[in-house]
């Protein structure tokens, strides 16, 4: 009973923090930490998904009309951009694992560029909405919400299209904020990658950032159909879903 472990101080990796026994434990903690963080993120978005479900059920025609006003092209391009960025991110993680420094840096740069492209396209979309006075409420002085440019489906009440637009801006805005944070995070990882901090033994920050990036992509994969696609068929003679 009196035995106790003595930490092998002489061999430890420079990246090992003092309170961990070994790198393996540190890696495990980091990864689990990110997974748990992502669970909280899901809960964070779930509040908005719940509101979306409730109000879509309440105002299906209004939601369809407002959704049809979004640019399907820009949304689809953005979806592709994000899926490709997930691929380059996965490539970055792989290269970090096998220690290919140059490829790691290149795939990180690509991922960041794709992320910025997404945000750029999103900004164009927001600008269009601003021009059409579709920013909900009185967020922007002098540009009170006005559904004038929306082609209303028969039976849709104009004032309730605002319910769609606040949800649209709340959800895509929160998503864009996560993208901005992701780009910042990857920039830090890129900085350390260039300085050669990661090796096959220690590359957990790359992996964990990858997890975060994939998660943010995944949220978009849900947002795109919910906000852009659902209800398009009504214009073509379908009946609204409940």
């Amino acid at each position, binding site marked *: 009973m009196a035995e106790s472990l003595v930490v092998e101080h002489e061999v430890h990796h420079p990246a090992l923090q003092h309170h961990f026994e070994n790198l393996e434990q540190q890696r495990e903690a980091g990864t689990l930490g990110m997974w748990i963080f992502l669970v909280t993120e899901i809960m964070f978005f779930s509040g908005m998904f719940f509101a979306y479900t409730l109000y879509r059920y*309440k105002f299906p025609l209004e939601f369809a009309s407002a959704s049809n006003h979004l640019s399907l092209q820009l949304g689809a391009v953005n979806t592709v951009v994000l899926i490709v960025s997930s691929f380059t991110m996965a490539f970055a993680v792989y290269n970090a694992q096998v220690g290919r420094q140059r490829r790691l840096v290149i795939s990180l740069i690509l991922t960041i560029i794709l992320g910025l492209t997404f945000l750029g396209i999103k900004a164009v979309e927001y600008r269009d909405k601003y021009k059409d006075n579709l920013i909900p409420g009185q967020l922007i002085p002098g540009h009170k919400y006005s559904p004038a440019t929306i082609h209303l489906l028969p039976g849709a009440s104009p004032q309730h299209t605002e319910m769609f637009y606040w949800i649209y801006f709340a959800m895509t805005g929160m998503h864009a904020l996560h993208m901005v944070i992701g780009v910042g995070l990857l920039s830090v990882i890129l900085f350390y990658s260039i300085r050669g901090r990661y090796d096959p033994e220690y590359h957990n920050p790359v992996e964990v950032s990858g997890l975060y990036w994939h998660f943010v992509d995944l949220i978009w994969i849900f947002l795109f159909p919910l906000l852009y696609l659902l209800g398009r068929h009504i214009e073509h003679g379908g009946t609204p879903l409940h």
Partner: protein
Amino acid sequence: METGWISWLPEAASTLAGQVDALYFYLSGVTAFFTLLISGTVIFFVIRYRRRSPFEIPRPVAGSHKLETIWTIIPLMIAMSFFVWGTNVYFKQVKSPKLATEVYVVGKQWMWKVQHSTGQREINELHVPKGRKIRLIMTSEDTIHSYYIPAFRIKADVLPGRYTDQWFEATKTGTFHLFCAEYCGMNHSGMIGSVIVMEPKEFDNWLTGNAGNQTPAVAGQQLFQSLGCTSCHGMNGEGGRGPTLAGLFGRQQQLTTGGSVLADEVYIRESIVNPQAKIVAGFTPIMPTFQGQISEEQLLQILAFIKSLHIENPQQPVPAASPATSPAQPRSSPQLNAR
């Protein structure tokens, strides 16, 4: 009113009050018994097994699945008895009887406005006869309130943009407290009043004595005309460019979406403030919204008018949607159909 220095129970003045009190006594008895039993056991153990020498180490125990099962099952069964009884009484509280006198209540910061179906209006008071079932149809002009009559053991939130209801049958004459129970701003504690229960005869006198007001239905009819509803719905709701209103209340209404909806207070209100929400099959969405143009009280009057319209030759109700059509769910939120 009060017999002792402290009264432990509020007056019980409705048919439901006794039932709630009986349940309360049962709960009090059972929980008091177990509270005393457990705390008694704890106190006994604490004294009996107090530490006698600083180094004594008692024998460790192994748990007992049998005991754990017993003290999981028994509380569960007792709890289920509370559940069954409580839900049973609750159903009686919530399900309004069909033949009840309706009284309209509008809550607003910080007063209760009441209108009887005969036209009498009151503020912060509610006169009701003993021994008759009264159903309150309630809405709010601003924030959430809650209409609470402790002596009747009833309470229900009063929400803006929606109707809620509750009912009671008073069993005792007298004056009872009326409180707003949902915090509603600065003068929340001033949003109180009294419920005055009278003998039916006295009540009828009170009603005629306070006459002079129009009934809500008559006032609603005037509104119906002055707001121009008649141009589409006809002078007596016989219909035209808009759907027929006569005999509408309580019927299933076919919608353009293929579903159908029960024409209740909630539906009629929605059709006035948000006419586009549910379009009756065969009609076009041409009706303008009246949101912001009529007050909650006027809405209630129009509602009373529509309810008063009957058809000369009652037809069969429109059959409900055939199973082939998309779900026959009303499109409102689940809460909207509550109660």
